[in-house]
Protein backbone atom coordinates (compact mmCIF):
# COMPACT_ATOMS: atom_id res chain seq x y z
CA UNK A 1 0.00 0.00 0.00
CA UNK A 2 1.24 3.46 -0.93
CA UNK A 3 -0.32 6.76 0.15
CA UNK A 4 0.17 9.94 -1.86
CA UNK A 5 -0.95 13.43 -0.91
CA UNK A 6 -1.30 16.58 -2.97
CA UNK A 7 -0.73 19.68 -0.82
CA UNK A 8 -1.85 21.98 -3.61
CA UNK A 9 -5.34 20.44 -3.54
CA UNK A 10 -5.63 20.25 0.27
CA UNK A 11 -8.17 22.61 1.91
CA UNK A 12 -7.10 21.89 5.50
CA UNK A 13 -10.30 20.18 6.65
CA UNK A 14 -8.34 17.95 9.01
CA UNK A 15 -10.49 14.91 8.22
CA UNK A 16 -7.39 12.79 7.52
CA UNK A 17 -5.82 13.61 10.90
CA UNK A 18 -9.10 12.91 12.63
CA UNK A 19 -9.37 9.55 10.85
CA UNK A 20 -5.79 8.33 11.41
CA UNK A 21 -3.31 10.56 13.25
CA UNK A 22 -0.59 7.90 12.78
CA UNK A 23 -0.65 8.50 9.04
CA UNK A 24 -1.43 12.18 8.67
CA UNK A 25 -0.64 15.48 10.30
CA UNK A 26 -1.29 19.12 9.41
CA UNK A 27 1.25 21.83 8.68
CA UNK A 28 1.26 24.39 11.52
CA UNK A 29 1.41 27.31 9.12
CA UNK A 30 -1.36 26.69 6.62
CA UNK A 31 -3.07 23.55 7.88
CA UNK A 32 -2.25 21.51 4.77
CA UNK A 33 -1.76 17.77 4.97
CA UNK A 34 1.56 16.23 6.03
CA UNK A 35 2.04 12.57 5.22
CA UNK A 36 3.69 10.71 8.11
CA UNK A 37 3.88 7.24 6.56
CA UNK A 38 4.03 6.65 2.85
CA UNK A 39 3.97 2.86 3.17
CA UNK A 40 2.03 2.02 6.33
CA UNK A 41 1.40 -1.45 7.75
CA UNK A 42 -1.63 -3.40 6.61
CA UNK A 43 -3.41 -2.59 9.87
CA UNK A 44 -3.78 0.99 8.62
CA UNK A 45 -5.25 0.01 5.27
CA UNK A 46 -8.87 0.60 6.22
CA UNK A 47 -8.28 4.01 7.82
CA UNK A 48 -6.01 5.13 4.97
CA UNK A 49 -8.78 4.36 2.50
CA UNK A 50 -11.36 6.00 4.71
CA UNK A 51 -9.25 9.16 4.94
CA UNK A 52 -8.92 9.22 1.16
CA UNK A 53 -12.68 8.84 0.80
CA UNK A 54 -13.47 11.51 3.37
CA UNK A 55 -11.03 14.10 2.04
CA UNK A 56 -13.26 16.88 0.68
CA UNK A 57 -10.62 18.01 -1.80
CA UNK A 58 -9.60 14.56 -3.08
CA UNK A 59 -6.02 15.32 -2.04
CA UNK A 60 -5.24 11.78 -0.82
CA UNK A 61 -4.81 8.69 -2.97
CA UNK A 62 -4.15 5.15 -1.83
CA UNK A 63 -2.73 2.61 -4.24
Amino acid at each position, binding site marked *: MKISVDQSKC*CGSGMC*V*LTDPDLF*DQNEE*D*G*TVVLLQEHPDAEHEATAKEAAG*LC*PAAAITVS
Partner: protein
Amino acid sequence: MTELISEELPITRQNPFDPPAEVTAIREQARISRLKFSDGHLGWLVTGHHQVREVLGSPKFSNDPRRHHLLDKRFQGEVPEDGRKSEPGMFLSQDPPDHTRLRKMLQGQFTVRRMNQLSEWIGKIVDDQLAHMRSLGGKADLVKEFAMPVPSLVICALLGVDYDERHRFQEDTAKMLSLEVSFKEAMAAFARIQEFMRELIARKKADPGDDMISDLIATGEPTDEEASNMALLLLLAGHETTANMLGIGTFTLLQHPDQLKILKDEPEVVDNAVEELMRYLSIIHFGPVRTAVEDVEIDGHLIKAGDTVLTHVPAANRDPDKFGDNPEELDLRRPASGHVAFGHGIHQCLGQQLARIEMRIGFSKLFAEFPDLRLDVDPEEVPLRTDMGIYGVHSLPVAW
Protein backbone atom coordinates in the same frame (compact mmCIF):
# COMPACT_ATOMS: atom_id res chain seq x y z
CA MET B 1 -35.99 9.64 -20.04
CA THR B 2 -38.70 11.92 -18.59
CA GLU B 3 -37.23 14.13 -15.95
CA LEU B 4 -38.94 15.08 -12.74
CA ILE B 5 -39.52 18.84 -12.59
CA SER B 6 -40.30 20.73 -9.36
CA GLU B 7 -41.87 24.16 -9.78
CA GLU B 8 -40.52 25.27 -6.43
CA LEU B 9 -38.38 23.90 -3.62
CA PRO B 10 -40.45 22.44 -0.74
CA ILE B 11 -39.17 23.85 2.55
CA THR B 12 -41.96 23.01 5.01
CA ARG B 13 -40.86 20.34 7.46
CA GLN B 14 -43.66 18.06 8.64
CA ASN B 15 -41.49 16.61 11.39
CA PRO B 16 -39.05 18.97 13.12
CA PHE B 17 -36.07 16.66 12.62
CA ASP B 18 -36.72 15.46 9.08
CA PRO B 19 -36.23 17.10 5.70
CA PRO B 20 -39.50 18.10 3.96
CA ALA B 21 -41.38 14.90 3.01
CA GLU B 22 -41.73 16.13 -0.58
CA VAL B 23 -37.95 16.38 -0.90
CA THR B 24 -37.53 12.85 0.44
CA ALA B 25 -40.12 11.65 -2.10
CA ILE B 26 -38.24 13.43 -4.89
CA ARG B 27 -34.98 11.76 -3.81
CA GLU B 28 -36.60 8.33 -3.91
CA GLN B 29 -37.73 9.00 -7.50
CA ALA B 30 -34.61 10.74 -8.76
CA ARG B 31 -31.29 11.60 -7.09
CA ILE B 32 -30.97 14.37 -9.69
CA SER B 33 -34.07 16.20 -10.91
CA ARG B 34 -35.00 19.58 -12.38
CA LEU B 35 -35.94 22.59 -10.26
CA LYS B 36 -37.38 25.92 -11.39
CA PHE B 37 -35.59 28.88 -9.87
CA SER B 38 -37.48 32.09 -9.07
CA ASP B 39 -36.27 33.79 -12.26
CA GLY B 40 -37.69 30.95 -14.35
CA HIS B 41 -34.33 29.24 -14.85
CA LEU B 42 -34.70 25.48 -15.15
CA GLY B 43 -31.85 24.33 -12.97
CA TRP B 44 -31.24 21.17 -10.97
CA LEU B 45 -32.04 19.70 -7.58
CA VAL B 46 -29.51 17.14 -6.33
CA THR B 47 -30.70 14.99 -3.43
CA GLY B 48 -28.52 11.86 -3.56
CA HIS B 49 -25.54 11.61 -1.22
CA HIS B 50 -23.08 10.45 -3.85
CA GLN B 51 -24.33 13.03 -6.36
CA VAL B 52 -24.18 15.92 -3.86
CA ARG B 53 -20.56 15.00 -3.11
CA GLU B 54 -19.81 14.91 -6.80
CA VAL B 55 -21.21 18.40 -7.41
CA LEU B 56 -19.60 19.97 -4.34
CA GLY B 57 -16.28 18.27 -5.02
CA SER B 58 -16.05 19.21 -8.69
CA PRO B 59 -13.97 22.17 -9.93
CA LYS B 60 -16.47 22.47 -12.79
CA PHE B 61 -18.91 24.21 -10.44
CA SER B 62 -18.57 27.80 -9.24
CA ASN B 63 -19.69 29.34 -5.97
CA ASP B 64 -19.57 32.91 -7.26
CA PRO B 65 -22.99 34.46 -6.48
CA ARG B 66 -22.89 36.43 -9.74
CA ARG B 67 -23.15 33.17 -11.64
CA HIS B 68 -26.06 31.77 -9.62
CA HIS B 69 -29.67 32.00 -10.67
CA LEU B 70 -31.75 33.16 -7.75
CA LEU B 71 -33.74 30.65 -5.78
CA ASP B 72 -35.20 33.12 -3.36
CA LYS B 73 -38.25 34.99 -4.66
CA ARG B 74 -37.63 37.87 -2.24
CA PHE B 75 -34.50 38.83 -4.09
CA GLN B 76 -36.04 38.74 -7.57
CA GLY B 77 -35.72 42.16 -9.20
CA GLU B 78 -34.37 43.57 -5.93
CA VAL B 79 -30.75 42.70 -6.31
CA PRO B 80 -28.61 45.04 -8.35
CA GLU B 81 -25.87 43.42 -10.42
CA ASP B 82 -23.10 44.85 -8.24
CA GLY B 83 -25.04 43.80 -5.11
CA ARG B 84 -24.30 40.21 -5.97
CA LYS B 85 -20.58 40.54 -6.21
CA SER B 86 -18.62 38.76 -3.55
CA GLU B 87 -17.01 41.14 -1.06
CA PRO B 88 -13.19 41.03 -0.88
CA GLY B 89 -12.21 38.42 1.69
CA MET B 90 -15.55 36.57 1.59
CA PHE B 91 -13.86 33.39 0.48
CA LEU B 92 -16.92 31.24 1.06
CA SER B 93 -18.47 32.74 -2.06
CA GLN B 94 -15.33 32.85 -4.16
CA ASP B 95 -13.67 30.41 -6.53
CA PRO B 96 -9.97 29.54 -6.74
CA PRO B 97 -7.46 31.12 -6.88
CA ASP B 98 -8.88 33.86 -4.60
CA HIS B 99 -10.61 31.32 -2.38
CA THR B 100 -7.45 29.24 -2.01
CA ARG B 101 -5.26 32.25 -1.20
CA LEU B 102 -7.58 33.55 1.52
CA ARG B 103 -8.54 30.23 3.08
CA LYS B 104 -4.87 29.24 3.38
CA MET B 105 -4.32 32.28 5.61
CA LEU B 106 -6.73 30.79 8.16
CA GLN B 107 -6.34 27.02 7.78
CA GLY B 108 -3.39 26.84 10.17
CA GLN B 109 -5.58 28.32 12.93
CA PHE B 110 -8.17 25.53 12.72
CA THR B 111 -6.07 22.36 12.62
CA VAL B 112 -7.11 19.29 14.60
CA ARG B 113 -4.13 19.77 16.94
CA ARG B 114 -4.88 23.42 17.67
CA MET B 115 -8.53 22.71 18.29
CA ASN B 116 -7.72 19.80 20.62
CA GLN B 117 -5.49 22.13 22.60
CA LEU B 118 -8.58 24.23 23.30
CA SER B 119 -10.53 21.36 24.91
CA GLU B 120 -9.80 22.31 28.48
CA TRP B 121 -10.55 25.99 27.90
CA ILE B 122 -13.82 25.17 26.10
CA GLY B 123 -14.70 22.79 28.95
CA LYS B 124 -14.33 25.68 31.39
CA ILE B 125 -16.60 27.91 29.28
CA VAL B 126 -19.21 25.12 29.18
CA ASP B 127 -18.94 24.53 32.96
CA ASP B 128 -19.40 28.23 33.69
CA GLN B 129 -22.42 28.44 31.41
CA LEU B 130 -24.02 25.37 33.00
CA ALA B 131 -23.42 26.85 36.46
CA HIS B 132 -25.10 30.02 35.25
CA MET B 133 -28.07 27.97 33.97
CA ARG B 134 -28.41 26.19 37.30
CA SER B 135 -28.37 29.51 39.13
CA LEU B 136 -31.58 30.44 37.32
CA GLY B 137 -33.61 27.94 39.36
CA GLY B 138 -35.38 24.93 37.86
CA LYS B 139 -36.05 26.04 34.32
CA ALA B 140 -34.53 28.05 31.48
CA ASP B 141 -34.47 28.60 27.74
CA LEU B 142 -31.58 26.35 26.75
CA VAL B 143 -30.89 28.33 23.57
CA LYS B 144 -30.55 31.65 25.35
CA GLU B 145 -28.64 30.37 28.38
CA PHE B 146 -26.46 27.64 26.89
CA ALA B 147 -26.59 26.78 23.18
CA MET B 148 -26.00 30.35 21.96
CA PRO B 149 -23.58 31.70 24.62
CA VAL B 150 -21.12 28.77 24.46
CA PRO B 151 -20.11 29.04 20.77
CA SER B 152 -20.46 32.81 20.95
CA LEU B 153 -18.05 33.09 23.89
CA VAL B 154 -15.66 30.70 22.15
CA ILE B 155 -15.57 32.42 18.76
CA CYS B 156 -15.46 35.91 20.29
CA ALA B 157 -12.45 34.96 22.42
CA LEU B 158 -10.68 33.20 19.54
CA LEU B 159 -11.19 36.11 17.17
CA GLY B 160 -10.50 38.76 19.77
CA VAL B 161 -13.98 40.29 19.68
CA ASP B 162 -15.21 41.73 22.97
CA TYR B 163 -18.14 39.49 24.02
CA ASP B 164 -19.78 42.47 25.72
CA GLU B 165 -20.13 44.09 22.31
CA ARG B 166 -22.20 41.20 20.98
CA HIS B 167 -25.38 43.30 20.87
CA ARG B 168 -23.71 45.13 17.98
CA PHE B 169 -23.72 42.06 15.76
CA GLN B 170 -25.90 39.24 17.13
CA GLU B 171 -29.20 40.72 16.06
CA ASP B 172 -27.82 41.67 12.65
CA THR B 173 -26.29 38.22 12.24
CA ALA B 174 -29.74 36.70 12.76
CA LYS B 175 -31.27 39.19 10.31
CA MET B 176 -28.82 38.27 7.59
CA LEU B 177 -29.74 34.61 7.87
CA SER B 178 -33.50 35.16 8.09
CA LEU B 179 -35.55 34.07 5.09
CA GLU B 180 -38.22 36.60 5.99
CA VAL B 181 -36.46 39.96 5.96
CA SER B 182 -36.27 41.93 2.72
CA PHE B 183 -33.13 42.17 0.66
CA LYS B 184 -32.71 45.79 1.76
CA GLU B 185 -32.95 44.90 5.46
CA ALA B 186 -30.46 42.05 5.05
CA MET B 187 -28.01 44.36 3.26
CA ALA B 188 -28.41 47.06 5.93
CA ALA B 189 -27.67 44.49 8.64
CA PHE B 190 -24.62 43.33 6.69
CA ALA B 191 -23.39 46.93 6.34
CA ARG B 192 -23.67 47.45 10.11
CA ILE B 193 -21.63 44.32 10.92
CA GLN B 194 -19.09 45.37 8.28
CA GLU B 195 -18.74 48.73 9.99
CA PHE B 196 -18.24 47.00 13.35
CA MET B 197 -15.56 44.79 11.81
CA ARG B 198 -13.77 47.70 10.12
CA GLU B 199 -13.54 49.43 13.49
CA LEU B 200 -12.28 46.22 15.06
CA ILE B 201 -9.53 45.78 12.45
CA ALA B 202 -8.40 49.38 13.01
CA ARG B 203 -8.29 48.79 16.78
CA LYS B 204 -6.33 45.52 16.39
CA LYS B 205 -3.83 47.18 14.07
CA ALA B 206 -3.16 49.84 16.66
CA ASP B 207 -3.19 47.46 19.61
CA PRO B 208 -2.73 43.79 18.65
CA GLY B 209 -3.81 41.05 21.05
CA ASP B 210 -3.30 37.30 21.33
CA ASP B 211 -6.11 36.36 18.96
CA MET B 212 -6.84 35.19 15.40
CA ILE B 213 -7.63 38.60 13.95
CA SER B 214 -4.39 40.08 15.29
CA ASP B 215 -2.48 37.07 13.93
CA LEU B 216 -4.16 37.46 10.55
CA ILE B 217 -3.25 41.15 10.35
CA ALA B 218 0.30 40.41 11.50
CA THR B 219 0.91 38.21 8.46
CA GLY B 220 0.61 41.36 6.34
CA GLU B 221 -1.13 39.27 3.72
CA PRO B 222 -4.76 40.40 3.60
CA THR B 223 -5.80 43.98 2.86
CA ASP B 224 -7.77 45.70 5.63
CA GLU B 225 -10.95 45.13 3.69
CA GLU B 226 -10.17 41.45 3.20
CA ALA B 227 -9.24 40.99 6.87
CA SER B 228 -12.44 42.68 7.95
CA ASN B 229 -14.66 40.47 5.78
CA MET B 230 -12.75 37.31 6.66
CA ALA B 231 -13.26 38.07 10.34
CA LEU B 232 -16.92 38.80 9.67
CA LEU B 233 -17.34 35.45 7.97
CA LEU B 234 -15.74 33.61 10.89
CA LEU B 235 -17.88 35.47 13.41
CA LEU B 236 -21.06 34.73 11.45
CA ALA B 237 -20.18 31.08 10.89
CA GLY B 238 -19.02 30.58 14.47
CA HIS B 239 -22.26 31.92 15.88
CA GLU B 240 -25.17 30.46 14.05
CA THR B 241 -24.08 26.94 13.32
CA THR B 242 -22.85 25.24 16.48
CA ALA B 243 -25.46 27.14 18.50
CA ASN B 244 -28.21 25.57 16.44
CA MET B 245 -26.69 22.12 16.61
CA LEU B 246 -26.56 22.36 20.42
CA GLY B 247 -30.14 23.64 20.53
CA ILE B 248 -31.91 21.28 18.16
CA GLY B 249 -29.51 18.46 19.06
CA THR B 250 -30.66 18.66 22.69
CA PHE B 251 -34.30 18.78 21.53
CA THR B 252 -33.68 15.65 19.43
CA LEU B 253 -32.03 13.75 22.26
CA LEU B 254 -34.83 14.63 24.66
CA GLN B 255 -37.31 13.28 22.10
CA HIS B 256 -35.29 10.07 21.71
CA PRO B 257 -34.85 8.85 25.32
CA ASP B 258 -33.44 5.48 24.26
CA GLN B 259 -30.65 7.23 22.38
CA LEU B 260 -30.08 9.73 25.16
CA LYS B 261 -29.67 6.79 27.55
CA ILE B 262 -26.87 5.45 25.32
CA LEU B 263 -25.11 8.80 25.48
CA LYS B 264 -25.44 8.93 29.26
CA ASP B 265 -24.44 5.30 29.90
CA GLU B 266 -21.62 5.09 27.37
CA PRO B 267 -19.73 8.40 27.37
CA GLU B 268 -17.27 7.03 24.81
CA VAL B 269 -20.03 7.07 22.19
CA VAL B 270 -20.07 10.87 22.17
CA ASP B 271 -17.78 11.43 19.16
CA ASN B 272 -19.93 9.18 17.01
CA ALA B 273 -23.07 10.70 18.52
CA VAL B 274 -21.93 14.12 17.32
CA GLU B 275 -21.46 12.79 13.77
CA GLU B 276 -24.86 11.08 13.84
CA LEU B 277 -26.61 14.20 15.14
CA MET B 278 -24.93 16.21 12.38
CA ARG B 279 -26.09 13.68 9.78
CA TYR B 280 -29.60 13.32 11.17
CA LEU B 281 -30.27 17.04 11.65
CA SER B 282 -28.32 18.66 8.80
CA ILE B 283 -28.90 22.22 9.96
CA ILE B 284 -28.24 23.64 6.50
CA HIS B 285 -31.95 24.13 5.80
CA PHE B 286 -31.38 23.60 2.06
CA GLY B 287 -28.43 24.11 -0.28
CA PRO B 288 -25.60 24.86 -0.93
CA VAL B 289 -26.00 26.21 -4.48
CA ARG B 290 -23.43 25.94 -7.29
CA THR B 291 -23.41 26.89 -10.98
CA ALA B 292 -21.69 24.84 -13.69
CA VAL B 293 -18.90 26.70 -15.48
CA GLU B 294 -18.66 24.03 -18.16
CA ASP B 295 -20.78 21.11 -19.28
CA VAL B 296 -20.55 18.25 -16.82
CA GLU B 297 -22.21 14.85 -16.76
CA ILE B 298 -23.29 13.54 -13.38
CA ASP B 299 -25.06 10.22 -13.03
CA GLY B 300 -26.12 10.28 -16.68
CA HIS B 301 -27.49 13.84 -16.55
CA LEU B 302 -25.87 16.50 -18.68
CA ILE B 303 -25.62 19.65 -16.58
CA LYS B 304 -24.77 22.46 -18.97
CA ALA B 305 -22.50 25.44 -18.41
CA GLY B 306 -24.59 28.16 -16.75
CA ASP B 307 -27.03 25.73 -15.09
CA THR B 308 -27.54 26.41 -11.39
CA VAL B 309 -27.70 23.40 -9.09
CA LEU B 310 -29.21 23.23 -5.62
CA THR B 311 -27.64 20.44 -3.61
CA HIS B 312 -29.84 19.34 -0.72
CA VAL B 313 -27.73 18.39 2.29
CA PRO B 314 -30.60 17.20 4.55
CA ALA B 315 -31.90 14.87 1.81
CA ALA B 316 -28.39 13.60 1.00
CA ASN B 317 -27.73 12.79 4.64
CA ARG B 318 -30.80 10.52 4.70
CA ASP B 319 -29.91 8.70 1.47
CA PRO B 320 -30.24 4.92 1.97
CA ASP B 321 -27.60 4.39 -0.75
CA LYS B 322 -25.08 5.72 1.77
CA PHE B 323 -26.61 5.16 5.20
CA GLY B 324 -28.31 1.77 4.82
CA ASP B 325 -31.80 0.55 5.54
CA ASN B 326 -32.82 2.93 8.29
CA PRO B 327 -31.48 6.39 7.46
CA GLU B 328 -34.61 7.98 8.96
CA GLU B 329 -33.68 6.70 12.41
CA LEU B 330 -31.42 8.42 14.90
CA ASP B 331 -28.85 5.81 15.87
CA LEU B 332 -25.92 7.12 17.89
CA ARG B 333 -23.96 3.92 17.23
CA ARG B 334 -24.33 4.06 13.45
CA PRO B 335 -21.15 4.68 11.42
CA ALA B 336 -22.21 8.18 10.41
CA SER B 337 -18.93 9.46 9.05
CA GLY B 338 -19.05 10.64 5.46
CA HIS B 339 -22.13 12.78 6.04
CA VAL B 340 -22.16 16.08 4.16
CA ALA B 341 -23.45 18.27 6.99
CA PHE B 342 -20.18 20.26 6.90
CA GLY B 343 -20.40 20.35 3.11
CA HIS B 344 -17.88 18.77 0.78
CA GLY B 345 -15.21 20.03 -1.59
CA ILE B 346 -12.95 23.01 -1.15
CA HIS B 347 -15.58 25.00 0.76
CA GLN B 348 -16.11 22.32 3.41
CA CYS B 349 -16.53 24.02 6.78
CA LEU B 350 -13.26 25.58 7.92
CA GLY B 351 -14.30 25.49 11.57
CA GLN B 352 -15.54 21.90 11.62
CA GLN B 353 -12.94 20.64 14.11
CA LEU B 354 -13.84 23.45 16.49
CA ALA B 355 -17.54 22.69 16.05
CA ARG B 356 -16.92 19.00 16.82
CA ILE B 357 -15.13 19.80 20.08
CA GLU B 358 -17.79 22.29 21.15
CA MET B 359 -20.53 19.70 20.52
CA ARG B 360 -18.62 16.83 22.13
CA ILE B 361 -17.97 18.83 25.30
CA GLY B 362 -21.31 20.64 25.17
CA PHE B 363 -23.54 17.55 24.97
CA SER B 364 -21.41 15.51 27.39
CA LYS B 365 -21.33 18.11 30.11
CA LEU B 366 -24.94 19.21 29.65
CA PHE B 367 -26.34 15.74 30.33
CA ALA B 368 -23.77 14.94 33.03
CA GLU B 369 -24.66 18.12 34.89
CA PHE B 370 -28.41 17.90 34.24
CA PRO B 371 -29.22 14.16 33.99
CA ASP B 372 -32.90 14.89 34.52
CA LEU B 373 -33.15 17.59 31.87
CA ARG B 374 -36.60 17.58 30.23
CA LEU B 375 -38.68 19.69 27.88
CA ASP B 376 -40.78 22.25 29.71
CA VAL B 377 -43.35 22.62 26.90
CA ASP B 378 -45.13 20.24 24.54
CA PRO B 379 -42.77 19.32 21.71
CA GLU B 380 -45.16 20.91 19.20
CA GLU B 381 -44.69 24.25 20.95
CA VAL B 382 -40.93 24.42 20.35
CA PRO B 383 -40.47 27.22 17.79
CA LEU B 384 -38.57 25.89 14.78
CA ARG B 385 -36.25 27.94 12.61
CA THR B 386 -38.04 27.14 9.36
CA ASP B 387 -37.69 30.85 8.58
CA MET B 388 -33.89 30.76 8.72
CA GLY B 389 -31.16 29.59 6.36
CA ILE B 390 -29.57 27.75 9.28
CA TYR B 391 -32.21 25.45 10.73
CA GLY B 392 -32.68 24.78 14.43
CA VAL B 393 -34.90 26.00 17.25
CA HIS B 394 -35.49 29.63 18.21
CA SER B 395 -35.81 28.63 21.85
CA LEU B 396 -35.91 25.44 23.89
CA PRO B 397 -37.71 25.73 27.24
CA VAL B 398 -36.27 23.08 29.55
CA ALA B 399 -36.62 22.15 33.22
CA TRP B 400 -34.58 19.99 35.61
